């Protein structure tokens, strides 16, 4: 078991009219190498789920275990040693005023103790170049370019590479294609599939795009009102269609899914 959430609950603004139950006793287990996509309408608790795993938020009650170790009280930066993360905003995952090789050097140090030794050496440069080549974007020839000069798609591809090439225990993808134009989104989706397969990463991907959730991964989770209401894997997942998903939601909740974006996104 790589990741385990036990009975995690989280309420925002408790006791006020704005009270919001973002997570209600959520249990979740991920095995090594599982690729799970998470869907659900706005406010279903997907982002909170991610933040509770990454450590940006500490759940009110419940436990988080990574690789059998309790991490619920570890601050975000310590947990980050086990977790690779790509954000929705392409600007969020890279440092714009630093070069591509410096950004990769910082990602390389993620699971190690940072020391007073140069982050970019000749040997490491070669390694960074090889990893960049796998993206097929020509970034390997621009190692000294400032990341702020790259396009949103290029930055997101770089973020994805930075989150994955040190092979973290868990990869968290938080709607990481949502802010890109369709062709770029498709490219990043493709790279995501390749990278996850290549490093055999245990992955949790939040998406608003149902088609993407069906195309990628080998397990699908649907969330609503802070609960996991639907969890399907294996062959059953491969046979799912968008219509199945909508029907399933209707059957379980007795109402229509309330976000057009969830369908069209």
């Amino acid at each position, binding site marked *: 078991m790589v990741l385990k959430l036990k009975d995690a609950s989280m309420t925002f603004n408790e006791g006020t009219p704005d009270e919001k139950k973002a997570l209600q006793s959520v249990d979740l287990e991920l095995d090594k190498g599982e690729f799970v996509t998470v869907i659900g309408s706005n406010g279903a608790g997907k982002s909170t789920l991610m933040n509770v795993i990454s450590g940006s938020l500490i759940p009110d009650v419940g436990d988080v275990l990574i690789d059998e170790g309790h991490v619920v009280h570890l601050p975000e*930066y310590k947990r980050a040693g086990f977790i690779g993360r790509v954000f929705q905003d392409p600007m*969020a995952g890279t440092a714009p005023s630093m070069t591509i090789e410096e950004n990769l050097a*910082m990602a390389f140090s993620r699971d190690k103790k940072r020391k007073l030794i140069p982050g970019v050496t000749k040997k490491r440069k070669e390694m960074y170049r090889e990893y960049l080549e796998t993206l097929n974007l020509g970034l390997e020839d621009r190692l000294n370019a400032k990341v702020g000069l790259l396009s949103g798609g290029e930055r997101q591809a770089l973020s994805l590479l930075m989150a994955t090439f040190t092979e973290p225990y868990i990869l968290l993808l938080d709607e990481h294609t949502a802010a890109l134009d369709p062709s770029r989104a498709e490219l990043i989706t493709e790279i995501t599939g390749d990278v996850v397969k290549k490093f055999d990463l245990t992955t949790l991907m939040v998406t608003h795009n149902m088609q993407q959730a069906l195309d990628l991964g080998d397990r699908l989770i649907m969330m609503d009102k802070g609960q996991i209401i639907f969890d399907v894997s294996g062959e059953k997942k491969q046979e799912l269609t968008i219509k199945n998903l909508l029907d399933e939601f209707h059957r379980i909740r007795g109402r229509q899914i309330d976000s057009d974006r969830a369908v069209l996104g």
Partner: protein
Amino acid sequence: MLISLFGAVESGVIYALMALGVYLSFRILHFPDLTVDGSFVTGAGVAGVAIVGGMSPILATLLGAFAGFIAGCITGILHTKGKINALLAGILMMIALYSINLRLMGQPTVSMLNESTLFSQIQSWWVASGFDSFFNNIILTLGAERFSGTWLVFTVMVILTLLVKVFLDYFLKTEIGLALRATGDNQKMIRSLSANTDFLIIVGIGISNGLVALSGALIGQYGGFANVNMGIGMIVIGLASVIIGEALFGKRTIIIATLAVIGGAIVYRIVVTLALRVDFLDSGDMKLITAILVIAALVTPRILQARREKKRRLQKKAELLQRKEGEVHGA
């Protein structure tokens, strides 16, 4: 004239250490740290008291720098752990340091005129070496007026400042240094890459103020006294040096930027010295001159850039017109 200009360069190289500290907080960490006004005096005062107390000048100077480092760390702690706005944390530390400095010094001014300082200690060796007559002869053969000053302070400070610069350049390229830079650039990102940003900010502001206090300790020994008010406006001078340097010499890479900051500190001193030679300006106008300098350094590059853009557009337009005319004539 030559003597006063030389003095300006000399003190400029010493103030360059302070400017490097300000560069670290303002430009690298994007932390507008006003502790500087206080920590500069802390460096001068601690070193002064230690020297008067009989400590070796080198140790006293290092002690002054260390005191500044601690002051900076406290500002960093106030900001990261106390969640106090960066500007306010610096201001609070600045006024707190005023009282602390007064306590440390015991009196508003500590005189070091009759003490052996870092510079006076090296002097005997320096005089024996004969470098002064060597340098002065070079100047004479270059056709300048007769110059009889000593090159001691200048040489020692250039070496020291360049050493600090090289150290800083190297540090900012290490794994920890990269994380420090990213903390100023994109905090969310570097935290997701397992860097303890709170710690980096605390240490970064600490090092920044350590450099400022080192500069203060040396200025104190250079001038022969430490005064509790000598730090007033220091942050603006540091900022002026950074901005002037970047405008004149560029900031493409860290190595260029730190060199530019040193250059900026020297240029600032020269400009102030020249301005004070103008008859109707007196030393009370220093702050106004500084403000105008900073404004000029901030605005001029923008104006130049806009001019270049305009010229480029006009040129393109003219080319297009010419081509069209050519087509008309050809038809």
